[in-house]
């Protein structure tokens, strides 16, 4: 590891940590106003949906696959259905993965 790499990694470490830590650092000294508290309740749904939907609809990152041949779409639909019906996280993940792999195995 040369000097350039050490500086690069130290810099990336500092930047990444500061972004993650900025709010935690303030601890109890920071209380959000009610409207922000309400808004923050939407963060999980918004961000997780934003990560998943493009993965599922464009599995290769470039091409739309809005068809039943798309194992990602079928697997995610199965996961969602199980989660919606039984509200059991590990069950929905396990069931969805089973559908995904079976589907790929059969269709592939």
């Amino acid at each position, binding site marked *: 590891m040369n000097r350039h790499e050490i500086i690069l990694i130290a810099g990336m470490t500092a930047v990444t940590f500061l972004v993650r830590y900025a709010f935690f650092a303030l601890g109890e000294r920071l209380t959000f106003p009610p409207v922000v508290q309400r808004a923050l309740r939407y963060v999980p*749904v918004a961000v997780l949906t934003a990560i998943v939907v493009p993965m599922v609809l464009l599995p290769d990152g470039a091409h739309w696959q809005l068809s039943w041949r798309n194992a990602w779409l079928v697997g995610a639909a199965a996961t969602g259905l199980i989660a919606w019906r039984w509200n059991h996280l590990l069950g929905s993940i396990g069931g969805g993965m089973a559908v995904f792999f079976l589907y790929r195995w059969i269709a592939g």
Partner: protein
Amino acid sequence: MSHDHFPHPWTEAWSGARDSLPMLLGAAPFGVIFGTLAGPSGLSAAGALAMSLCVFAGSSQFIALTLLAGGSGLAVILLTTFVVNLRHALYSATLLPHVAGLRQRWRVPLAFWLTDETFAVVQLRYGEADGSPHKHWYYLGSCLAMYGNWVMWTVAGILLGHSLPRLEHLGLEFAMAATFTGIVVPMLRNRPMLAAALAAAAVALAGRGLPYKLGLMLAALAGVAVGTVLESLEAK
């Protein structure tokens, strides 16, 4: 005061690690690919390991490799790292009420280890109604599992590189999509939540060509804005 009726801290930590298991599988191919690509991108083996140990942020590590290979300078890489990681500020703002009362010696490592995956399961645990005072142990358990896993698969990629079976074609990444889907769907209980998800999905799809994960950040903000506005309209 006794907390005997709550899960023991170690039980919480174990649950956090266990609930992260599908995402450990999902992250494995990325760890291997990162380790494999480091050398050809101009990052030494020690540098690749150090990056996984110290930075611990998959997407910015990959983007750093691309920029390194393209000959970008330090300032560009650091600025990119900042933008790519912005969503973590949203996560820490969301989790802040739950960790604000912890000592710094907890908040520092919990911030260092905060990732998409850990955020996904930890916000769910904090949302459960039991008043367990040990939920930060659950958080810690998820962190340690994700961290150990990421470092281990980076090392595997560095050492074995192309001789590893083509892990990226096994479809393990689907585990992450399944976990996030399984977490989100039960949360879509009312119209504002549903609208937030739809808005986030639409913006994420429309902005998927934007660089530096900006599409993801914009999608998150759009979802939050739509949900919040709709909630206030319905309350009137």
